[in-house]
């Protein structure tokens, strides 16, 4: 890029081939960039380099300098290399002019064999019962760089097994290779210096101080970066062999950060969520709360069938009937008698269809439920809606998302509003009581879980959770990212955008939208920030479409209204059922999980 200051480039020889790398590149990274993988355990590019595993030993050399202090050139016109007699680690060394490395020489292979042998002598050979099997670097590198025979005839060092080092993390110290990644992660990323090594030499053991526990909201990242089976996820442990998992790239929808994820599933069951590297969003990490916040998708309270109210009772119906019923309800009322409460958890596509629905009905009364929690300075945003920015862009309201919610609730109470459409939210978040909801002539609900409000609805439309559908969202920093379908929705639940499209067609018979791509294309035509993009162009890592300064500032009076809406939610929380609560405020649910698994600490 012409405008950026020129970065100094260095010539580096890797396995006999010269390459150029910018200053500051680690040699181990430089090798990787040109397709030469150097095995490593302790090195992690987001953490400091202690150089302790010695797996990345390579041969290193520098140009031989002539009497004029200039590199002497060989017959090929390239510098002649003086090789250092000892192998060097390449994880802590930056590239320098003329530096040369050999990653596949006999000496290097001998070093790798030696280190592998050392790592394995005291490591239990319990792969058949180890959860890491299949994604274990010790297993992989043992095959790639080790030997098949063990020369070790002695007793192995005994260490603690199955230690609950935190509410969500289980530790097997015998498997630990003491690479210290987890300790450094806790110090450098999570800012919770809770893990450490005790004892010495081969007897060294990873532990937390008695009475302390690895309970920070980032604890499960230590499981991800543990190269062996020492730290395992208590949640995922023994549930599924990793090689059976189908991996779907998606994003976390538990807050406005939108951490990039991989969803691991098998036969439409989610087994785990792990962070996916994206330096513009979440680096290599995600918080435990977001990671574990998928269980509600398998809750017993899932809405599985469309239902309509008939003779005062909710009865199952097929989709055309349910949609038709909903459209019928809405067409009965004047535009001023209808309100739509959408969700900041809906995708852009769903929001666009919602906006279409509103405009075809002429409805002005539309807003989302604001959702806030305590943010940290790491990843967790205080805005717990993943797509507040999508709401801003697509619903195009003048006030901040959530600011009109209390006014809508008041209008329902006063009877001004006669039909309420609740999309992916619990109507009780508005502060309305069951009785008040029951009095509404029409209550159309599209949701995932059953709750007190769905039971008072005129029409219930069962929809999809974040892992069951495609679509896009705009995160808190204005980055457009993609959700992908990892599992099929259960029962007769349907993709949200299809439900909304059908409802829209039921109301105005409008033009046909056959795919979600069609919807995105329509957004692109109406919302300038989406210009030139498509779902596929968003890619796995997303596209920045908003600068922070482009985000409209929230008006103080909006802020007041939003705070009020959140206060109302908080007041309601005490009367809601557990599962309802889990969905409405997952942050709380994870804290409760954590509390249930550790001794009382307060």
């Amino acid at each position, binding site marked *: 890029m012409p405008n950026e200051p020129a970065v100094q480039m260095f010539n580096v020889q890797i396995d006999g081939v010269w390459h150029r790398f910018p200053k500051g590149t680690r040699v181990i990274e430089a090798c990787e960039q040109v397709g030469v993988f150097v095995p490593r355990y302790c090195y992690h590019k987001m953490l400091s*380099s*202690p*150089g*302790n*595993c*010695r*797996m990345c*030993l390579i041969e290193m050399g520098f140009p031989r300098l002539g009497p004029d202090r200039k590199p002497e050139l060989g017959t090929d016109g390239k510098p002649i290399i003086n090789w250092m007699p*000892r*192998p060097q*680690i390449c994880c*802590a*060394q930056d590239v320098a002019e003329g530096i040369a490395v050999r990653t596949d020489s006999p000496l290097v292979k*001998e*070093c790798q*064999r*030696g*280190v592998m*042998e*050392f*790592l394995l*002598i*005291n490591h*239990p*050979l*319990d792969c058949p019962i180890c959860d890491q099997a299949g994604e274990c670097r010790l297993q992989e590198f043992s095959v790639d760089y080790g030997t098949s025979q063990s*020369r*070790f*005839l*002695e*007793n*192995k*060092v*005994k260490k603690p097994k199955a230690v609950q080092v935190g509410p969500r993390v289980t530790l097997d110290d015998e498997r630990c*290779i*003491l690479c210290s990644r987890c300790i450094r992660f806790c110090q450098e990323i999570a800012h919770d*210096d*809770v*893990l*450490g*090594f*005790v*004892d*010495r*030499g*081969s*007897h*060294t053991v990873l*532990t*937390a*101080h*008695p*009475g*302390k526990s690895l309970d920070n909201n980032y604890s499960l990242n230590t499981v991800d970066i543990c190269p062996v089976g020492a730290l395992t996820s208590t949640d995922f442990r023994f549930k599924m062999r990793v090689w059976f998992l189908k991996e779907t790239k998606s994003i976390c929808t538990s807050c406005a950060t939108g951490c990039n994820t991989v969803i691991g599933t098998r036969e439409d069951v989610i087994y785990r969520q792990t962070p996916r590297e994206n330096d513009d969003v979440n680096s290599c990490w995600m918080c435990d709360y977001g990671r574990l916040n998928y269980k509600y998708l398998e809750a017993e309270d899932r809405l599985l069938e469309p239902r309509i109210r008939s003779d005062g009772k909710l009865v199952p119906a097929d989709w055309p009937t349910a949609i038709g019923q909903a459209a019928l309800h809405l067409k009965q009322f004047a535009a001023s008698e209808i309100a739509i409460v959408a969700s900041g958890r809906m995708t852009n596509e769903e929001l666009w269809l919602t906006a279409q629905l509103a405009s075809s009905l002429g409805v002005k009364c539309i807003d989302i439920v604001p959702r806030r929690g305590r943010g940290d300075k790491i990843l967790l945003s205080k805005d717990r809606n993943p797509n507040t920015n999508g709401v801003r862009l697509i619903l195009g309201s003048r006030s901040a998302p959530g600011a009109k919610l209390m006014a809508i609730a008041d209008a329902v109470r006063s009877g001004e509003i006669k039909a309420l459409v609740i999309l992916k939210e619990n109507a009780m978040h508005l502060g309305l009581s069951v009785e008040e909801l029951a009095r509404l002539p029409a209550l159309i609900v599209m949701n995932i879980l059953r709750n007190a409000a769905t039971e008072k609805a005129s029409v219930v439309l069962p929809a999809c959770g974040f892992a069951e559908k495609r679509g896009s969202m705009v995160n808190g920093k204005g980055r457009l990212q993609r959700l992908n379908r990892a599992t099929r929705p259960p029962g007769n639940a349907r993709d949200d955008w299809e439900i909304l499209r059908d409802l829209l067609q039921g109301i105005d018979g409008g033009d046909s939208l056959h795919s979600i791509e069609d919807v995105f294309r329509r957004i692109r035509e109406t919302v300038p920030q989406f210009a030139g993009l498509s779902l596929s162009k968003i890619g796995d890592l997303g596209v920045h479409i908003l600068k922070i300064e482009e985000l409209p500032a929230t008006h103080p009076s909006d802020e007041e209204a939003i705070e009020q809406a959140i206060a109302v939610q908080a007041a309601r929380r005490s009367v809601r059922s557990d599962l309802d609560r889990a969905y409405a405020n997952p942050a709380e649910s994870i804290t409760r999980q954590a509390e249930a698994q550790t001794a009382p600490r307060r």
Partner: protein
Amino acid sequence: MPNSTTISVPAQLERRMDDAIAHYPREHRRSAAMPLLHLWQEHFGFVSGEASVWIAEKLGLQPINILELVTFYPMFRQHPAGKTHIRVCRTLSCAMAGGLELMENLCTALGIQRPTDGEEMHHPIAVSADGNYSVEFVECLASCHTAPVCMVGEELHEKVNPESAAELLGNRESEAGNQQLQWPPHPIERRLVYKNIGRPSWTTDIDCYLREGGYEQLKQALTLSRDEIVNKVKNSGLRGRGGAGFSCGLKWSFIRPDEKRPVYLICNADESEPGTFKDRYIIHEDPHQLLEGMFISCYALNANTAYIYIRGEFPEGAKILERAIEEARQHNFLGKNILGSGFDVEIYVHRGAGAYICGEETGLIESLEGKRGYPRIKPPYFPAVLGLYMCPTIVNNVETLCNIKHIVAIGGAEYARLGRPNNTGTRVLCVSGDVQRPGYFEIEVGALTMGQLIYQMAGGLRPGRKLKAVIPGGSSAKVLRADERFKLKERQADGSTIEREISIDDIPMDFDSLAAAGSMAGSGGVIVLDDSRDMVWALNNINKFYAHESCGQCTPCREGSLWMQKITDRMLRGGGVVEDPETLKTIGDNIAGRTICAFGEACAWPTQSFVGKFPEEFAGRAHKPLPPPLPPEYTPEELIDKESIPTVPMAHDPGWEKAGAKGTI
């Protein structure tokens, strides 16, 4: 102060802790962790779980940071010891002189059951039933020439007769202070640094030192420019006396004259290389010489703060140094504007706690920063660039720093005339093991041969014994075999070199000759083994030392050091298999040169050289065939007595039957 624990810390103890904290920069209070742990243990007898919490809170740390230290440094104990705690040295020279029997007899006298090998790691201390006594094996106490030694409480007891071990327990006072004076010096000696060591009328107080012309070189140095002093040191050719033999002047020249960050000088007084005890006497008998050397060095390096990192097993030495520092302060050799020069300098004593690895300079720096003594990777953490608190730091050995005073006294060029080219000056050699007069001898470097050292100075071997092997530079140096022939290049007067084949007796005791002979001058600790010694046993003793002292940070040394010990353990128990010597050697090969610090070499070289040079002894203990492959978690205890191992019949396994397998593997 800290209040999340219920323990009550007396105000006086807390005041002493606050004093200790003041020894370190405000933003590096963590450095005070070890001093606080020492104070805590002195007061409470042991470091409880609450101590970690309390001290962590006091220093603004997490409890795990303190627990990491308590479990790294063996001198900190998590359980109470007896009223009298006895630490018996188990390292080579003491073990050869009966240290192991000493422990056995002590245990018998006290009715103490020592922990087994497996338990020892976690519970090294065994307490007598009445709680009055406790015993513990410790690694080298740096008094190898007076082996076997032990520490009763804080007092060193030398040349303890294992047969009369019980006497240690009774009248302790009469036994105390029985340090062996070695005076007068041997006529071949050239005493410079050791001029006053062992002198009958010599004391450690500053008046004695001043009477003999002490601190004159400091006054002289303060009239010189810093460059002049650094140049003197460069010209002197002084090589570090700690073990690596690195040029001191070159090391000093890494400090940039225009350095903006604070510069630190650290005196490495963590003397713990088995076979070495030279620094012990400087510290205990001539502390002001060391301080003077340090003041001059601080001035030359523009370092306003210096630390003496003294090994924890020298409690008396630490007190002597602290007293000497106070005396020096009263004379304004230390403090603000010393002797009106405008230069400020402070020296603090920082006690280690039983970790050999803290003798490695970057491990020492980490330890001084209040962490586990994990050596740092180089690059990038060269101490002269990124040392203590990420500031430029020079770490020099005690003897090296003393030499600075003498270089200033006689001039660099004159100093360089002592010894041999590239091996200048004098150095103190420590002789221990199977000689009649073990002890310390200061010689001009290379001015005498191994033979002269052993036979003339150290009195030769015991009657009827023949020399078998010599470890010439501390236990990490490669062993030399008595009947080996060594090829050494010798420079002639006309500049040409000729190769000469010599015997072990003719090897000159200098850096280059010992390196050429395939070993090293190391720390100057010469351990002599006679023909009564079992080399497998000797190697096993050394293996144990390194397995115990490996910090455990990097893989090859952590795993390899213990593996080697386990193999020699098994060989001694009679379970050696034919492959063992080769396995031992390749383990050494896989460690040396592949670790973060030189400990890798230190633990590999003995194994490589013992196995390589005494193949007949190792083969003699490795005659069993390799056992058949074992089930992964099988414990091969039976290997020891039986030639074959019965295993669970596998015939019921249909897979095995199909494959035609027999009933056993």
